[in-house]
């Protein structure tokens, strides 16, 4: 039987945690960047909750993946759009699910191709376990310890729904 979560409740908690993280680090004007596709939905909600005034940036990391020759191109994903300079700015990078860490590695590479940010924080709705790189999130909606036979998927944008399925 599929398991599900109240995404809005998790988002509320993430916004609270982000506010205190920003206060601790004395960051007053962060930029936010969401990773296509699920990360952008989460970022839109957090962007509104934190009342950020600068526009939300979006990343399509397909050109930075390390498995390109295994999976080929995905032309249907929207292009990256960073409508600001990242140079010397504090950035909150947002994704829906943190799994192996490879997506985040690719996103960091892409951000650094646009400039040198002052810092990057990572916020993800779910940390499902199974990391293969030394990457962890600063703010997490919920930590799970899923097996390789379990899959977590965010669907949206309206409504945002999170389901966890187990292979038989």
């Amino acid at each position, binding site marked *: 039987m599929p398991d599900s979560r109240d995404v809005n409740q998790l988002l509320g908690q993430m916004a609270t945690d982000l506010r205190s993280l920003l206060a601790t680090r004395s960051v007053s004007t962060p930029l936010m960047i969401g990773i296509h596709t699920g990360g952008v939905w989460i970022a839109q909600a957090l962007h509104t909750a934190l009342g950020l005034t600068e526009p939300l940036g979006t990343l399509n990391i397909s050109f*930075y993946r390390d498995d390109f020759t295994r999976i080929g191109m995905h032309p249907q994903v929207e292009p990256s759009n960073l409508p600001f300079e990242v140079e010397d700015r504090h950035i909150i990078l947002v994704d829906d699910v943190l799994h192996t860490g490879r997506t985040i590695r690719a996103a960091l590479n892409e951000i650094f191709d646009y400039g040198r940010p002052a810092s990057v924080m990572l916020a993800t709705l779910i940390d499902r376990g199974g990391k293969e790189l030394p990457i962890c999130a600063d703010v997490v909606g919920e930590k799970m310890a899923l097996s390789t036979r379990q899959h977590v998927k965010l669907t949206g944008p309206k409504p945002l729904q999170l389901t966890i399925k187990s292979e038989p």
Partner: protein
Amino acid sequence: MMNRNLQFDAEGRLRHFIDIEGLSRLVLTEILDIAENFATVGTQQVKKVPLLRGKTIVNLFFEPSTRTRTTFELAAKRLSADVQNINISTSSTSKGESLLDMLRNLEAMQCDMFIVRHNQSGAAHFIAEHVAPHISVINAGDGWHAHPTQAMLDAFTIRRHKPDLTDLRVAIVGDIKHSRVARSEIHALNTLGVPEVRVIGPQTLIPPEAANLGVHIYHSLEQGLQDVDVVIMLRLQRERMEGALLPSEHEYFTRYGLTESKLALAKPDAIVMHPGPINRGVEIDSAVADGPQSVILEQVTNGIAVRMAVMSLVLGRAPQGEDGS
């Protein structure tokens, strides 16, 4: 697939890019969509993505070219591939080495892709027929036959200005007979659903078979330009002319040169394109080439993104037996 097209591998994925003819609307649209993603790379501080890191691409140009060779080279470099330019006039073919021997040698150097420009029609196809299975070939122009990446970058430029291609009237003006660009262009526009493609030029420069390509033929520039959305001017290919096809360049400009007053016959928001290099005062007036409706330099910029798209699509095929998820 019944009629096996050389351009596809055994699993139906694009392996070579030789000719627009035989490619579906789906494939062409996929190339345009991928190019849209690459268009932003040129505006990044680091104008590079790591997609083709470790791949070796050879520019095999048997015919002089500045723009096409440079944009292929830049496209490969922006994808992080290594690029080797081979200048054929100084290479071993002038020492009597056969083309096939030269290909075998380049294969032995573990190259992944050949970009081929040749003055003989069918050259890229011939090379694609004979290369080792892991190598892809892209046609960068062969004789009078085809110039498929130019056609795609033109379609890309048109789509950026006029998103609905199924509602357009496009005129191609000038030396259709000697133009591989025109041939590829007509196939691309037809495949992408452009309802009306016109070719405009003197009788001597329009090949008799043009009528079979589903285009409307005009011999008067004034009539042909009426209400078109896009005007594609072609270069007068003096180096390909044999015999007296034209009285003089001056008379050609008087009848077929694009001036501001003739452009006024097209739709007010019509765009003007040219594959370059332009002969100012022969096929196009400077006031038009540099004017507000000209997108000629945009075509050059877009050429890089489109060539990146074709290269990555072809080299990004998953190894056989693995499925993309």
